[in-house]
């Protein structure tokens, strides 16, 4: 009777034409559907065209609180993401403040104003009114005559003389919201800020600006940066990279396989499998309507090695065996039969490892995990089905000289260098088992120390290599300016629950007080103010909002005012004013104490040294106050009364850009935001600033019950990173458990299950230890690669252990088995390591750092997991031989009490981890549930293992558990 694997291989080999036709058919259909729906979106109305999403913000789902808040505050304060154009002149003694440089700046500004496009019926692009440039901002200063305040454009036209050019610099340096923002503190550079209606036009703006700048001659250097540019440009370059890196990797893998197997016709098959898997997966992704995100763009790069891995196992085995029978059909059936189970399990575990990413709360990571899993499973199916069919297409003559020459049954002399080395390695692991294990433990301890050093950090600008124009711009501009990374600190007064009764009561108390105050001047005041309180109580009954309440009171008072005469008219006039004062009483951001606290908070920001500059409503008030009082530096302060603040603010609103005020405060004066410029976009630095402010606010309680909360792109990056780190960790723990469960079931033994987890564990610990020791930040690609190492390392372990067990059954002792395992199976592993590790070296040439990281880590993962498999596993088997092979019984998992219980506990933990992320249950609750669940499992397992079915199958072995 044939096994499943052999039967499938046999059938496919027989019907090789049908199998191939079906595979090609499906591939063409999926590829065509994806392509047609993308190229002609209207042709297939039921399919969405391909959408590209390069926005890291989308690492968080749209309803994530921080994003909701970010969007809300941006809308309320009319803020936009900005492109920053820095202009530096290192040649001219006055820097950029010379007529020619400023002429270019003026021209570039005029050009930037026109950067708008019709997109989906909306005008998108640069927000002209909010553009910050010398010619678009106002200067407030003392006019020519003494005591005259002047609001005028900072640079209404290009200056004609060097003096006029320098004057622009000097004027801007006087204004806190321009100095360090528009004009660099060293007075040599300036920066234009181009707000965008939406982030995804930033690359278009970037390209247009560069074209314009190319027309300019002279000594000016232009640097374009800002997070939206970095993010959007990354997206564009990513797709260029995809078109280069992935094919280049394919080419290298192809050449390497050609070296190993020396048969072009055979080597093409893994290529076909990899290609078809990628087309199917990406096609499915597009057809399913998911956007291609930074994460999903990496799917091909993850699927390819795994697809090749399967095919190489088969090829390697086929290569080693073919000469024994010289029969394609027999050889391939035999090969597939031998590899069927290990391959099924390696694919299942890898797929499970990636699918577990679906448990992270990050949408793009979920999509990535699920589709890589789909890709792995389709690669497996293709390998099992298509490889036998493919082999049958090759003429026997072509295979004449194929494969290892010397064969005598199962034991063969290892051919070639790799074979000889592996043979020696096999012997070494047998003789030196204990030292090898000792060494491994030492490595693990060092790695553990390395892990403790890991710094979690990311910065989208650093996704570019140091020589990339965006990185250069980032460096140069942050040297000159207060920083080009924008974050905003929102300060919000607590929401007031409106209650007509409370309002009337408060109003009455205040009215009585005011009435008494006016008593001396106007004796009728107390009576009229008492009447006013009465009016307030009556007119606010049944009213639903504060605004409405005051509207009604004001209307009632104005009616009295119209009919009043004599002194009474004066008092009613005062009453009317009093009503409006009460209405304005909740405008907290006009309070001098609040503004003073904001100024102190800004100083605390400055102390972090990460914040180069911050702008707030306080700065604005102080500046206007100073200029109103003859520009005296001593008057650069918050005035003493609320009304004075209000009058400074209304003075400010007599400028060209009156609406700029509303970027700092909402018109109800209950929400404000501090514009914070950081010199670094590192998440670590942003977190540091946020922590410092939390600490400061803790010690300096805000007036008016203000709450502080961050928003802005730089902060959002921190939030999704934190989420990702935690999410990845849990997802990894989950996949670890899934793999362990599968292994325990595959080997029907806890011990073997644990053994198969060893290479994986060692690899992860070693890799992250190295990451920590080298000082590489734990960022997005590093986090995602843990899942890949899981897939690859467990693949090697399964092949190694499955074959070991099989050989052991035939040979009886590990001493005899080891050399066999270090034959074919070990060669397949080594070939895989070499092919894939080398295959991804083209990624190192990519100008995008995440791709380089993937390239380096991929190679490291393969090397380490290969080494762990070939060194530690045999050493462990040597040491544990007695227990590993002693009580072997081919019964079901449930027949061993221990195995069953361990599996059950692992399963419980898995569910607990998943639920914890979704329901946000505390671990305490989880522990209680587990405490109940585990005894239940124990009893169930005990009963199951003692059931009749187990006894019948394994009558000779008693329950040892």
């Amino acid at each position, binding site marked *: 009777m044939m096994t499943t694997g052999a039967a499938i291989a046999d059938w496919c080999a027989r019907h090789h034409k049908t199998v191939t036709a079906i595979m090609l058919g499906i591939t063409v259909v999926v590829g065509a559907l994806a392509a047609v729906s993308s190229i002609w979106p209207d042709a297939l109305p039921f399919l969405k065209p391909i959408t590209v999403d390069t926005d890291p913000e989308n690492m968080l789902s749209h309803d994530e609180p921080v994003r909701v808040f970010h969007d809300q505050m941006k*809308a*309320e304060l009319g803020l936009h993401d900005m492109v920053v154009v820095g202009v530096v002149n290192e040649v001219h003694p006055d820097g950029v403040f010379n007529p020619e440089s400023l002429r270019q700046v003026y021209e570039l500004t005029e050009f930037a104003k*026109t950067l708008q496009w019709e997109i989906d019926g909306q005008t998108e692009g640069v927000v*002209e*009114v909010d553009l910050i440039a010398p010619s678009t901002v*106002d200067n407030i200063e003392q*006019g*020519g*005559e003494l*005591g*005259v*305040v*002047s*609001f*005028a*454009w900072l640079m*209404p*036209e290009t200056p004609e003389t060097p003096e006029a050019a320098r004057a622009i610099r000097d004027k801007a340096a006087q204004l806190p919201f321009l100095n360090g923002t528009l004009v660099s503190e060293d007075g040599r550079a300036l920066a234009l800020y181009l707000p965008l209606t939406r982030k995804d036009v930033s690359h278009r703006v970037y390209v247009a600006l560069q074209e314009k700048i190319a027309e300019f001659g002279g000594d000016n250097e232009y640097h374009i940066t800002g997070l939206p540019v970095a993010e959007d440009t990354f997206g564009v370059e990513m797709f260029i990279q995809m078109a280069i890196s992935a094919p280049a990797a394919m080419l290298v893998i192809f050449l390497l396989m050609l070296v190993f197997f020396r048969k072009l016709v055979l080597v093409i098959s893994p290529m076909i499998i990899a290609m078809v898997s990628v087309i199917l997966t990406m096609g499915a992704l597009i057809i399913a309507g998911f956007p291609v995100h930074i994460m999903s763009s990496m799917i091909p790069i993850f699927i390819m090695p795994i697809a090749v891995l399967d095919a190489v196992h088969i090829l390697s085995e086929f290569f080693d065996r073919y000469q024994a029978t010289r029969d394609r059909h027999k050889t391939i059936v035999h090969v597939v039969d031998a590899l069927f189970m290990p391959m099924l399990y390696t694919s299942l575990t890898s797929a499970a490892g990636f699918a577990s990413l679906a448990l992270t709360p990050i949408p793009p990571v979920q999509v990535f995990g699920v589709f890589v899993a789909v890709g792995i499973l389709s690669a497996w199916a293709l390998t099992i089905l298509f490889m036998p069919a493919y082999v049958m297409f090759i003429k026997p003559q072509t295979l004449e000289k194929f494969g290892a020459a010397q064969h005598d049954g199962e034991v063969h002399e290892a051919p070639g260098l790799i074979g000889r080395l592996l043979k020696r390695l096999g012997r070494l692991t047998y003789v030196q088992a204990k030292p090898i294990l000792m060494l491994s433990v030492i490595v693990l301890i060092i790695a553990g120390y390395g892990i403790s050093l890991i710094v979690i950090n990311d910065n989208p600008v650093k996704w570019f290599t140091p020589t990339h124009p965006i990185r250069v711009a980032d460096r140069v501009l942050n040297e000159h300016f207060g920083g080009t990374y924008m974050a905003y600190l929102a300060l919000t007064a607590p929401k007031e629950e409106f209650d007509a009764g409370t309002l009337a009561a408060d109003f009455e108390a205040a009215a009585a007080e005011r009435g008494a105050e006016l008593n001396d001047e106007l004796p009728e005041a107390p009576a009229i103010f008492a009447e006013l309180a009465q009016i307030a109580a009556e007119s606010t009954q049944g009213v639903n909002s504060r605004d409405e309440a005051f509207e009604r009171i004001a209307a009632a008072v104005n009616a009295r005012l119209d009919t009043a005469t004599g002194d009474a008219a004066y008092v009613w006039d005062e009453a009317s*004013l*009093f009503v*409006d*004062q009460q*209405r*304005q009483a909740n405008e907290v951001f*006009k309070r001098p104490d609040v503004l003073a606290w904001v100024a102190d908070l800004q100083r605390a920001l400055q102390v972090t040294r990460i914040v180069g500059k911050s702008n707030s409503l306080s700065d604005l008030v102080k500046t206007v*106050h100073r200029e*109103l*009082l003859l520009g005296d530096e001593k008057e650069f302060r918050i*005035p003493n*009364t*609320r*009304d*004075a603040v*209000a*009058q*400074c603010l*209304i*003075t400010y*609103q*007599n*400028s*060209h850009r*009156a*609406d700029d*005020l*509303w970027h700092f405060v*909402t*018109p*109800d004066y209950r929400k404000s935001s501090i514009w914070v410029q950081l010199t670094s976009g590192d998440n670590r630095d942003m977190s540091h600033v946020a922590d410092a402010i939390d600490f400061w606010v803790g010690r300096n309680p805000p007036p008016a019950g203000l709450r502080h909360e961050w928003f802005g792109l730089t902060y959002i990056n921190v939030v999704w990173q934190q989420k990702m780190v935690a999410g990845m960790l849990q997802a990894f723990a989950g996949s670890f458990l899934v793999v362990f469960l599968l292994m325990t079931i595959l080997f029907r033994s806890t011990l073997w299950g644990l053994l198969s987890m060893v290479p994986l564990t060692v690899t992860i610990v070693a890799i992250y230890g190295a990451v920590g020791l080298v000082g590489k930040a734990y960022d997005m690609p590093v986090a995602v690669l843990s899942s890949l190492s899981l897939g690859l390392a467990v693949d090697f372990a399964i092949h190694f252990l499955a074959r070991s067990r099989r050989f052991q059954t035939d040979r009886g002792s590990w001493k005899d088995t080891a050399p066999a395992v270090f034959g074919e199976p070990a060669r397949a592993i080594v070939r895989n390591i070499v092919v894939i590790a080398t295959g991804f070296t083209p990624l190192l040439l990519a100008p995008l750092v995440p791709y380089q990281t993937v390239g380096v880590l991929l190679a490291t993962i393969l090397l380490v997991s290969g080494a762990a498999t070939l060194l530690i596993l045999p050493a462990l088997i040597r040491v544990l031989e007695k227990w590993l092979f002693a009580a072997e019984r081919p019964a079901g998992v449930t027949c061993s009490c221990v195995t069953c219980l361990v599996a059950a506990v692992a399963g419980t933990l898995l569910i607990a981890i998943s639920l914890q992320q979704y329901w946000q249950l505390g671990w305490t609750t989880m522990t209680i549930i587990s405490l109940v669940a585990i005894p239940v499992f124990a009893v169930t397992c005990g009963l199951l293992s003692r059931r009749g079915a187990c006894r019948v199958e394994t009558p000779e072995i008693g329950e040892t558990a």
Partner: protein
Amino acid sequence: MNTKLSIALLVGAVFLAQRVVADETPSVDEIVAKTNRVSYYQGADGRAQVSMKIVDDQGRERQRQMTILRRDVPKDGQAGDEHCGDQQFYVYFHRPADVNKMAFLVHKHLARDDDRWLYLPALDLVKRISAADKRTSFVGSHFYYEDVSGRHIDDDTHELVETTDNYYVLKNTPKEPKTVEFAYFKMWIHRKTFLVVKTEYYDGQDKKYRAYEAKKVDTIQGFPTVTQARMTDHRTGGFTDLEYKDVKYDVGLPEEIFTERYLRRAPREFLR
């Protein structure tokens, strides 16, 4: 009736009508001069209670209430309505409460830059404000100073681009484009009253970005007067509504009110 005769009469009538219309069409300069007078110089002086509602693109409203006093500076002792010369404005704020008593004084000069003073009661400060640039926001609204006090007719070249049933459409192009933010603006002038009912401002790309609209006209003391108006900023999507109440012409405002001294000591009797 004889057909020939009636045709002749008809032709004659049409001819006559055309002549009359042609006669009635004044020159561009006449239109501009009349419009200027109707918009800013009706009566020897004037007073209005103005409420201002500033609305942004999110529908958030801010209110301001003020009294505006205007006095035409007479030429050779004559305060004739035909003379459109220098003017004086006194703007006194009532609301919001925190800017109560704040006041602006503007001396508008045709021959030189205006003089502008600002009184801030909370800082007890009278401040001269440079008025070199009149196209800045008037107290945070979408109206500019120039919209309140009037743009000098000699600053632009005027061109009659269209005459409709009701309106003369003038295109005004600045003589010094660098001093203003618009490339040109068009005015729709009512043919009978010479009131501006609509003004549209265009930028260098011929895009309309700002527009004024008279919403309501009342005849007060025989003068057709805009009593509700709106200025819209199409770039930001915000607008400001002005409402003129208790409009009065020829109040007899004394000259001395329009001096720095009266900023601190508001002329109460004229403000209520």
